[in-house]
């Protein structure tokens, strides 16, 4: 019986079955890279004061995470275990360089805005963490999905934080992009506290939200909400 199932699985391993879907959706909530695995909080959060750069960096992380998992998984049997860190770092660094050069070529203002944070994706622990924990031991397609899932889970948190910070701190959304929304008042300033505004004239911009510290508070509160919904995640210590 057991042999039978193993053979079955090998014979027609579904391209996108239940397990595969789980790989994609798990990191979005129950196994979120930031709020549960506590990986990759580094660096990228510093760009969350606006939505546009956060979106760019999320896409970059998904790309790097997915393809580094794929490549590592493809060559996993050829990597000697003593130098695997270096090999992984080289793979990640090459991918990040691709991202950096692409962005530099196609959207220079955003590249300038992100400055060092694109480069810092290399040391984003979530990329390396997934390589160590998953890609070194799994087949390429699954590793790829795992990379995409974790990148998305990471990006989701980044975007939530960015939306909260931009709306309450600057009174705009997607500032600097064609989709720009200034849903506050009729003035040219993306400020909530314009006295000419009909809707939100009473509201002054919350400068706290522009400070880096606000990102911490928002994540802290997100963790709080998530763990009250799902008490399994609460750490006992």
């Amino acid at each position, binding site marked *: 019986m057991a042999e039978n199932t193993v053979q079955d699985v090998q014979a027609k391993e579904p391209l996108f079955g239940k397990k595969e879907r789980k790989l994609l959706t798990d990191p979005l909530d129950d196994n979120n890279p930031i709020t549960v695995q*506590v990986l990759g909080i580094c660096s*990228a959060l510093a760009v969350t004061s606006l939505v546009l750069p956060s979106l760019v960096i999320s896409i970059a992380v998904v790309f790097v995470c997915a393809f580094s998992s794929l490549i590592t998984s493809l060559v996993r049997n050829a990597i000697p275990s003593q130098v695997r860190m270096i090999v992984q770092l080289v793979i990640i660094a090459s991918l990040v*360089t691709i991202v950096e050069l692409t962005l530099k070529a196609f959207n220079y203002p955003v590249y300038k805005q992100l400055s060092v944070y694109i480069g810092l994706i*290399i*040391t984003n622990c979530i990329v390396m963490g997934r390589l160590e924990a998953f890609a070194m031991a799994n087949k390429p397609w699954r590793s790829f999905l795992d990379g995409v899932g974790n990148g998305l889970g990471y990006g989701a948190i980044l975007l939530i934080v960015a939306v909260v910070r931009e709306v309450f701190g600057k009174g705009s959304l997607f500032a600097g992009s064609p989709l720009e929304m200034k849903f506050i008042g009729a003035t040219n300033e993306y400020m909530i506290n314009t006295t000419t505004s009909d809707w939100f004239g009473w509201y002054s911009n919350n400068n706290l939200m522009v400070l880096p*510290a606000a990102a*911490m508070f928002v994540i802290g509160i997100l*963790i709080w909400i998530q763990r009250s919904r799902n008490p399994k995640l609460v750490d006992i210590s």
Partner: protein
Amino acid sequence: MGEFINTFIRAAFVENLVLAYFLGMCSYLAVSKTVKTAFGLGLAVIFVLFVTMPINWLINEYLLSENGVFGVDLVFLRLILFIAVIASMVQLVEMVVEKFSPALYNSLGIFLPLITVNCAILGGSLFMVAREYNFTESVAFGLGGGFGWFLAIIAIAAIREKIKYSNVPPALRGLGMAFILTGLMGIAFMSLMGIDPAAFSGS
């Protein structure tokens, strides 16, 4: 000298790597459960930043730039080269420390290899390039940044040791509280912005 002190103070307090730029957050949160381990990691970070920063500065200036040894613009190799330098320096530091001071080696333990993927180290080097620091400034930035990181992790570790005895809502215990504390500390550190760097550079 004024330049040195100026950069040091800015890097250590006002532009603290953890609290203002979120660099090195992973190890900062993972290793800050007790003061003792936080102390070890903090020292290791100061040391590695102090060593890698000047090396990366020299590499960037004399190997990668157009006016360097090769006379070709090799900037696209920067990320790979920096991370390679950091990884090998950490390895080297580990071997030297193990050889000459086994006691220190034992107390630093697993933290040394962890530092390779500590964003604060690579971030420091990248900031140095982005801000076009000269050699003195980059040394000061390495020392100051490391010191700031050290201060931040010691402080959060001490608070976390005490907060165990407080009545925090269960869902917020541990990680959630650590985030909120870090935010509060960030605000506290920002108050040091009032220090006038010009007072130092003028002398």
